[in-house]
Each structure stands twice: as structure tokens, then as C-alpha cells.
């Protein structure tokens, strides 16, 4: 088990290092000089040279890379070439907003997927199971931003129950925070829930065919008791893998949903950075998102071992 954990940690760290090189290299091939881009076309050559010197853009690329990486490791994401403000605090503030969305979205997705998927598997030859299957198939086809727009049309425009957009920090006004969180979290959660439902169904169907479940039924347990006591933990292993991948999708989905609901999260920061040509900011946000995806996959690997005792000796 320890060996496996060391191996997975190694893979995670190497992936992280290679990704950071990729992100840095990708932004470095950008046509045009970041300093010139930041100052505008009318800036004098002296002003551009001064900015290049100020931000260390005149140094060799490897030096710039290691400097950036060193900063990242210390939590220092550098200073924006455009706004001249420190990037770290901005990313940290925005990340909190996005995390609220992602976590709420995932909770909603799980709350839908686990019961619906289990029900679909238990009744997979009945009309109710097939009907749920069809609904989930439609849910998978609706992108989160479209779900967001539809939710706004129904709950904000037609019914007037919830605000159409905006964001209030929870510490400032918890009631308003919740009201504004519901629709974007639902937009993310409903769609992910539909995707996840299909995996839960498939995993539970596999478990239902297992001998130990038949034995549990033979001992006199009712179908749902048997599934609850013996089935769900076994069905959890494949679902957790997908959950990890879905969390990454959810994080990226949040980028678009933030736009729909005018929420000042990490996605908005990234998109604003792209439109302002604030390259270091874009590079930092992309790296934070990639780190989050890799970290989630790493944690899923670790969770595997916890869920499946057979892997502990492997």
C-alpha cells in the first residue's frame, strides 16, 4: 500500500512539473511582447524596455520559468503586467467563489445520481427505469450554461423566485448568498448529476449480478437491504473514478456558468485576463486549474486504496 502511495505521489509530482513547463512554454510562444501588449501600441520603446526590466522579461526563458515556479511553490503568483496588482490574492479570492459553486454543484449531482442511478439499475427492465434512463440521456445532452439560462428563464424571469445573477459573499449576507448560489449550483449539478447517474446505474447493475449479492438475498435480505449492505460500497469504486473526472469537468463548467450568472469566480478572472491580454494572470489561473484537476485525480487514486482493500496489498 505504501509503495502504491509513493508511486502515485511520484506520478502526481512529475505530471505537475511537466504541466507547468507546458503552460509556461505555451504562453511563451505568444506572438508579440507581453510588455508591449500591456502598455499598448503607442508606448515608447523606453517605457516597454523599462517594463520588461521591471518584470524580468528580459531574462532568459529558463530563468523566467524557474522564477515563476519558485514563486508558485511559495504561493507568490507574481504581479500583473496590466493592473500592476499582485495576482495571488485575486486568484485566492476568486478560487473561493468557484469552490462554493463546484462543491454545491457536486453535492446536488450526487444527491441526484446515487438514488436515481440505483433505482434505474434496480428497475432496469421496468418502465420506470427506462423512463429515468431517457431523462438522464436528455440531461447529459444539455450543457451547464444552457441549463443555467433555462433556469433563469423559469425561476427568475417567469416565477421571480430567485435572483437571475449576482454574487454576495456568505459572510456579508448568508440569506442572499444562498439565494444567489441556488441557480448556478443547480445548473452545474443537474447536468453532472445526469452524467453521473448513468455511471452509478452501470456500476450498480454490475454489482447486482455478483454472487455475494445473490447470497445476501438467499440469506433473506430484501433487495434494497442487500444492495445497501453489500452492493453500494462495491459499486462506489468505479463511481469514485468518474467522480474525480467529473469534478474536473465541473471546475471547467463553472468557468462558463460564472459568465451566465455574472459571478466573480476564477473563470471570470481567466476570461477577463484573456480579454485584457494579461498574460501572467492567464498563465497563473490556467496553472491553478490544471493543478486542481491533477490533485483531484491524485486524491481519487488514494481514495481507491481506501475503498478497495484488495488494492492495499497490490
Amino acid at each position, binding site marked *: 500500500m505504501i509503495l502504491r502511495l509513493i508511486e502515485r505521489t511520484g*506520478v502526481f509530482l512529475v*505530471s505537475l512539473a*511537466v*504541466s507547468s513547463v*507546458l*503552460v509556461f512554454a*505555451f*504562453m511563451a*510562444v*505568444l*506572438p508579440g511582447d507581453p510588455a508591449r501588449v500591456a502598455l499598448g501600441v503607442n508606448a515608447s520603446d523606453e517605457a516597454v524596455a523599462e517594463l520588461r526590466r521591471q518584470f524580468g522579461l528580459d531574462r532568459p526563458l529558463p530563468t523566467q520559468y524557474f522564477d515563476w515556479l519558485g514563486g508558485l511553490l511559495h504561493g507568490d503568483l507574481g504581479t500583473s503586467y496590466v493592473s500592476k496588482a499582485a495576482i495571488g490574492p485575486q486568484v485566492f479570492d476568486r478560487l473561493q467563489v468557484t469552490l462554493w459553486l463546484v462543491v454545491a454543484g457536486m453535492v446536488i449531482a450526487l444527491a441526484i445520481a446515487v438514488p436515481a442511478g440505483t433505482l434505474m439499475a434496480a428497475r*432496469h427492465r421496468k418502465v420506470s427505469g427506462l423512463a429515468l*434512463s431517457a431523462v438522464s*440521456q*436528455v440531461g*447529459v*445532452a*444539455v*450543457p451547464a*450554461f*444552457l441549463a443555467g*439560462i*433555462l433556469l*433563469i*428563464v423559469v425561476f*427568475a*424571469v417567469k416565477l421571480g423566485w430567485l435572483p*437571475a445573477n449576482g454574487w454576495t459573499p456568505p459572510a456579508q449576507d448568508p440569506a442572499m448568498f444562498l439565494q444567489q448560489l441556488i441557480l448556478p449550483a443547480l445548473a452545474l449539478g443537474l447536468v453532472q448529476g445526469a452524467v453521473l447517474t*448513468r455511471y452509478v*446505474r*452501470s456500476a450498480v*447493475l*454490475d454489482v447486482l449480478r455478483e454472487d455475494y449479492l445473490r447470497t445476501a438475498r438467499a440469506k433473506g435480505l430484501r433487495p434494497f437491504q442487500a444492495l445497501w449492505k453489500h452492493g453500494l460500497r462495491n459499486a462506489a469504486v468505479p463511481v469514485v473514478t468518474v467522480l474525480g*473526472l467529473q469534478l*474536473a*469537468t465541473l471546475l*471547467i463548467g463553472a*468557468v*462558463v456558468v460564472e*459568465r*451566465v450568472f455574472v459571478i466573480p469566480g476564477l473563470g471570470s478572472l*481567466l*476570461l477577463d*485576463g*484573456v480579454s485584457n*491580454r494579461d*498574460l501572467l494572470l*492567464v498563465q497563473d489561473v*490556467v496553472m491553478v*486549474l*490544471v493543478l486542481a*484537476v*491533477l490533485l483531484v*485525480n491524485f486524491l481519487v487514486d488514494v481514495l481507491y486504496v481506501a475503498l478497495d482493500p484488495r488494492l492495499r496489498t497490490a
Partner: protein
Amino acid sequence: MRRLNPSLIAGGVIVAVIVAMALVSFVWTPYDATLVTPSSRLLKPSWSHWFGTDKFGRDVFSQIMVGSRTTLFVGVVAVGVAAVIGVPLGILAAMVRRWPGEAIMRANDLLLAFPALLLAIMFGAVFGASTLTAMIAIGIASVPSFARVIRSGALQVMRSEYVLAARAAGRQPFPIAVRHVLPNVTSLITVQASVSFAIAVLAEAALSFLGYGTPPPTPSWGRMLQESQEFLFSAPRLAIFPGLAIAIAVLGFNLLGDGLRDRFDPKLEDRR
């Protein structure tokens, strides 16, 4: 007789309708999809404008028709890019065992950390937003899933007797890959292409919605949705029609992918 496969039929019909709509739009649309007519702004659906008109007086139905071309074009190119890179990579990873094969798959996994949308936004930041950058970014982001699926299929083929016989007869790896492995993974390629197509449609719509996809005036379902946002209170139908188009297209390709998978591997039919 083989049982009817509802997913395959439903998916096939939906995709055929979208393809037909795109083809017809080359020769006929009710109105010029890009024609700005200020006098007929925001008209409700009627016999003359089936889906109404937008803020510039453009006919929404005509835009949906021409938008299907954009959707299919982006899908075809993105899936093409993914297949051209992913299929050889998957076959190579299966044929070259030991560490080079392992290294290919590790690099492949690394690419998974860059989802289509993130990659496309990065491409947009560096090269400027366009249909081309969106297609390439979506294509590259779909490479890992192609490579993974094809590798698992190719590994099975590599263990088959005819491949062992070909190797024993002294055939070189490249002819084995082309003559034996590739023809036996085409069903996997078809299924994966359909699934990736659905993802490409979603990604293109999201990118155009954010302003990083197809630039105006070329009609695109995602941008129609974006433009509809300022009229959600007064004319929500402007969001409904392109939204439905996106959802139906994705549903069609997903169903087609499911149906094809069932057809090629009937054992799996019960699982979905």
C-alpha cells in the same frame, strides 16, 4: 433476426436530420441568415418567421439552419484531428510494450489535465479566437480518449492468432498495424468518433457562448445563445431555439454512439 436498436435508430435519425438541414442551408434558407433588417427586430414566431427574429431582425430559423453547418464543420475537423493523432498513438502504445508504450500513455494521461474548454481558451489567448483555433483545441483535447480506447482494442487484436501468425511469418510491425490492427479497431473508432462529436458540439457551443469560438457574422448556436442573454426577460425564446438545437444535436450523437456500441458489442447492451 437482429433486434431493433432504438438508440441507433433515434440517434441516426437526429444526426441525419441535422446533416440534411446543413446541406439544404447551402442552397436554401427562408431568409438570408446574416441579413440585418432593423424594421423587423424581435418579431415573435409566425408563419413568415417560424422561430421569430433576433435583435438585428435576422431570421432565427435561418440562423439555426446555417448554424448547423458550423456545428458539423467544427465537429468533423475536431474529431478528425483527434482521430489522426489518437488512433496511431493508441495503436503504437499497444504495439510498443514496455516503457515507450507506457510513456506514450502517461503523456496521454497528462493531456487529460487540459480539458477542451481550457485548452481552447489558452489557444484563443495566444492565437486569437477563431473557428480554426477552437476546432484544433477541441481536437487535441479529444486525443487522450481516442488513444486510450484504441489502445485497449489494439491490445486485444495483438493477442489474436492471426497477428501472432503474421509476426511468426516475419511481417514488419508497420504492415501488421495497417493490415491487421487498424481494420479490427474501426468499430471502436466509429463509436469514439460519435461520442467525441457530441463533446465537440458542446465545446464549440460553450466557446462561441464565451466569445472564443466562431466570430460573427457566421451564425453559430453558441453565439446565438450568448446574444439572447440580454433579452432573457423580454424574449426568452431567443435562448430556447438555439439551446434546443444544441441539446438535440448532442443527444443525437450520444445516442448514435450508444447504439453503435451496442451493435458492435451486443454483450454490453444490457449495461446502459
